[in-house]
């Protein structure tokens, strides 16, 4: 097995390279079946059906964005109501602020809701995937650079209860993995 990173630093995991998206889905299923939990599969593009293969739950991002959107909506209500009705009441179209004037406030309610939702989606995404993070043990592995071109990788982390350096490496090899590598933290 190859070694990536400084061998005297703690172990991060064991990784292997696979030939195709089809292989990677199969590997993910096998790893699950073998009882591994802390592993991840890496690919240059999102693979259809992978979520099912690794049995991950649906991303909760949608609910978070809903809360963000609701915040935006309420912010726009406050932003328009307080000046228009309290601080600086204006009579526009012959109407003071009131129920019949409400449609004229819709565009800003809508835009602000979308604005807050989009920012929540973006910031929520970064928080969920733990980015920005410019240093990661995987970047010690030279071959891993291929992941953004046409490489498919599976990495089992050492924190997995079933992890054992040699056995896990052999298991990855038996699944058809090449370039099985032990990855260290630094």
């Amino acid at each position, binding site marked *: 097995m190859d070694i990536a990173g400084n061998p005297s630093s703690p172990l991060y995991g064991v990784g292997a390279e696979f030939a*195709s*998206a*089809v292989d990677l889905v199969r590997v*993910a299923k096998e790893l699950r079946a073998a009882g591994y939990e802390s592993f*991840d*599969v*890496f*690919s*240059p*593009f*999102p*693979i*259809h*059906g*992978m*979520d099912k293969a*690794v049995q*991950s739950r*649906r*991303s909760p*991002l949608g609910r978070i964005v809903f809360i963000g959107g609701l915040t935006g909506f309420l912010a726009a209500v406050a*932003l*328009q109501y307080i*000046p*228009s009705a309290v*601080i*600086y009441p*204006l009579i*526009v179209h012959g109407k003071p602020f009131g129920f019949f*004037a409400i449609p*004229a*406030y819709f*565009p*800003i309610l*809508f*835009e*602000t809701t*979308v*604005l807050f939702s*989009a*920012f929540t*989606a*973006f910031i*929520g*995404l*970064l928080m*969920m*995937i733990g*980015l*920005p993070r*410019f240093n*990661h043990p*995987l970047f010690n592995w030279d071959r891993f*650079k*291929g*992941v*953004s*071109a*046409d490489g498919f990788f599976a*990495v089992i982390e050492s924190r997995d209860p079933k992890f054992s350096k040699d056995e896990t490496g052999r298991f990855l090899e038996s699944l058809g993995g090449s370039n099985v590598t032990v990855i260290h933290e630094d």
Partner: protein
Amino acid sequence: MAEGTLSPVEERARASVERAPLVAPGRTRGWISDYVSSIVEAKTPRWWWVAISITGTLLLVLIACTTYLVATGVGVWGNNHPVGWAWDITNFVFWIGIGHAGTLISAILFLTRQKWRTSINRAAEAMTLFAVICAAIYPTMHVGRVWMSWFLIPVPNANGIWQNFRSPLMWDAFAVLTYFLVSVLFWYTGLIPDLATLRDRATTKVRKFFYGILALGWRGGNRQWRHYEMAYLLLAGLSTPLVLSVHSVVSFDFAASVIPGWHTTIFPPYFVAGAIFGGFAMVLTILIPARAVYRPLGDLITVSHIDKMCKVLLFTGSIVGYAYLMEMFMAWYSGNPFERATFWYRATGPYWWAYALMILCNVAVPQLLWFRFFRTHVIWVFVIAMFANVGMWFERFVIVATSLTRDFLPSSWGMFHPTWVDIAMFAGTFGLFGTLFLLFIRFLPMICMFEVKAVLPSANPDSGGKL
């Protein structure tokens, strides 16, 4: 049945049902990364320097004109009573409309699972951002005292004045700003995996640092992809109503007034269709030359892609044509003499040539796209797209100018004459747009690599995919 036993008729039938591949056969994932990245990594080609010196010069013209305008006053434009909104608002609507095609391609076609969008969405979204930047210049300058434009932002100020949130101009400020920011987020989110590709390929320290920072440390694990796909879906879902709302709100600037020819309920859908029409024309206008310069891109942006874009152009162009007819019909059917007079004036008054040009460019010429020949020969497509670009500018000019030059009272009738500053600034915005686009081509991947890889047959585990 074996291939050889098909009769010619059957073969033709099968060929007409089968879809053209989205990526030319034989182009692998590795090739896509290599080729698209190589555009960014290769030495700057000579044509690029020539092109940017032209657009850069125009950009300087824009900067000079803007400086002159701010220093002198908004009167350096030809706007005057009765045409208070003239080329500036025309150009504003023209540019912001162009942006809409980018969002349509990136969001609406994503939600409707039109996979052919993958090879054109990056460039189209970039076009959106640059077009919105060009558009934003005009209302900002049009306020006259530019340094007071922060008054649009609802913050407590020393005068104790607050905005009128019931004004379409205020809606516009919110809509355009939201549109720009959301488009930036959507674009950048889509760029992250591709920036990681450039980071991983980087050979120089500067590049490694630049793309490394921008890629945020993307690793491409399923733990990231699953949230990423959800975020992308959500952003697409948010952008879809947003893009429709933006041009609707822009049309409210006109429709919420009482001016004949503006005060109509058809405006929001009419403006949105026109925006998509004009935007697709601009997408074709920039992608066809890009495809000619970088020949292998033709394997990603195939003739089939161009053909599909032409169909959108034909469809939206026809909607716009329908809207022109409907406007005329409603003016007659309403029985309102001012409405009737305005439309009669539009088609037969001193601006008849602008109206005729608009009909020719937006309605008549795109009808050629019914013929496959015109949709599949890029030179023709380019010519037709150019017509549409011109036509959409004239559409906005016709709307803005003809309604304002003939108001209710003959005492407030008058013509509009652009000044040299009007003309130079409009040319200047093309310089800004072109400069930004050239910088984009040079420094960022102009094709969304990871999405194109995902539509290759080999990417789908169910296909038993090889490669």
